[in-house]
């Protein structure tokens, strides 16, 4: 029993020794708690008139509808943010097709855990970069893994 305890303690020590593989210094940690819900960016400024128009529509949707009807999107980024980011990364036509595909996947409530990694806020991580049809942009993350986003 003592041997097992010593082995476990030794293993714990060994595992925890990994924090000292880089020199560290004092950390000024705060007692305060971070707000739980992510804060939206309500800026409507864009690189061009089209993007500004689209952002204005999106912000209007967020303000009058999305912020009022609760947290319904299981994904991160949300579908509206996904649409904005898709159009920004590609163009309006391709962005719309990406959004249509996202909307269909949003309706599929079965077996999401075996398809998507998990983001910090426990939503399913599904960025537009996976769907631009540019294979070099795809950063594959296995399903079920946690992502710091």
């Amino acid at each position, binding site marked *: 029993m003592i041997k097992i305890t010593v082995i476990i303690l030794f293993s714990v*020590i*060994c595992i925890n*020794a*990994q924090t*000292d*593989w*880089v*020199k560290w210094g004092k950390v000024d940690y705060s007692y305060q708690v971070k707000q739980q819900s992510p804060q939206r960016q309500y800026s409507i400024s864009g690189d061009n008139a089209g993007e500004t128009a689209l952002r204005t529509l999106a912000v209007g949707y967020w303000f009058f509808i999305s912020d009022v009807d609760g947290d319904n999107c299981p994904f991160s980024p949300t579908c509206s943010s996904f649409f904005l980011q898709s159009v920004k990364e590609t163009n309006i036509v*391709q962005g*719309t*097709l*990406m*959004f*249509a*595909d*996202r*909307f*269909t*996947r949003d*309706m*599929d409530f*079965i*077996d999401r855990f075996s*398809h998507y990694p998990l983001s910090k806020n426990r939503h399913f991580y599904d960025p537009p970069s*996976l*769907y631009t*049809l540019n*294979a070099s942009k*795809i950063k*594959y993350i*296995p399903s079920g893994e946690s992502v710091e986003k």
Partner: protein
Amino acid sequence: MKNILLLFFLLLICQNISHAQVSDIYSPGNRNLFADFLYCQKDYLRAADEYKEILQQSDLDTLFLKIGLSYLKSGNYDSSSVYFGKIKINSLLYDNSRQEYYKSQFLSNHFEEVEKGPYFYKPVDKLYKFSLLLGYKQLLPKEKFLRPFEVDEKPIVSDFYDRKLNPPYKNELTAAVLAAIIPGTGKIYTKNYTDGIFAFLSTGIMSYISYTDFKSHHQFRGWLFAGLGTFFYGGNIYGSIASVQIYNAGVNFNLNLDLKSYLENKNYFVPDYDFCK
């Protein structure tokens, strides 16, 4: 008087002994003991710092090797390469250090350095072959590729070779055509079964509602649902192509994961120096 003098000299001797002990724990021998202790506790950065302090007083190849190993095990591959490189050619540890050096280069993805490694170091040759599997350059013919591996290693490495040469990719055009003919089948082709079913249902239901609306002469609703049906249909084809790319990325990811897992189990084919025993 004599006794007082005797006491005085005895105390002086004791004082000298104690002073010797004050600096004793920083002697090269004791520092080495302490550094070995830290290394065995997996406190590699501290161990490396201790070994480096001893270097200032003595210049031993064993220390270079230990420092290199400490940095290697804590993921600092560039520093480890430097120390492995300091061991001279006439040293007994030279061969060990070269293999560890090429292992560091491999771990930091400097495959072009591994390629320069001498082939009479079998571990280095094996690492070079694995760099090809990780996409460094084109694969060699199978027989030449498998040559440096042991008999018990060949079946697994051969499997890796086959997976790299003929990966089980899906075809984008096939997925697009399937999705165009029957909505949802493109997704089923890439094993997204439930996505495929929902793509089929969404396109189908919108199309059906549009059809019934047109039949009942509800023009506006007919066009509305026709538009939605087109929206989902287009998304289904696009999404099928994207899902093929993600599927293929997953095939590559899993192969690389299996390769790295195998290499870790084998300690990258380099003998493990366990001086903690």
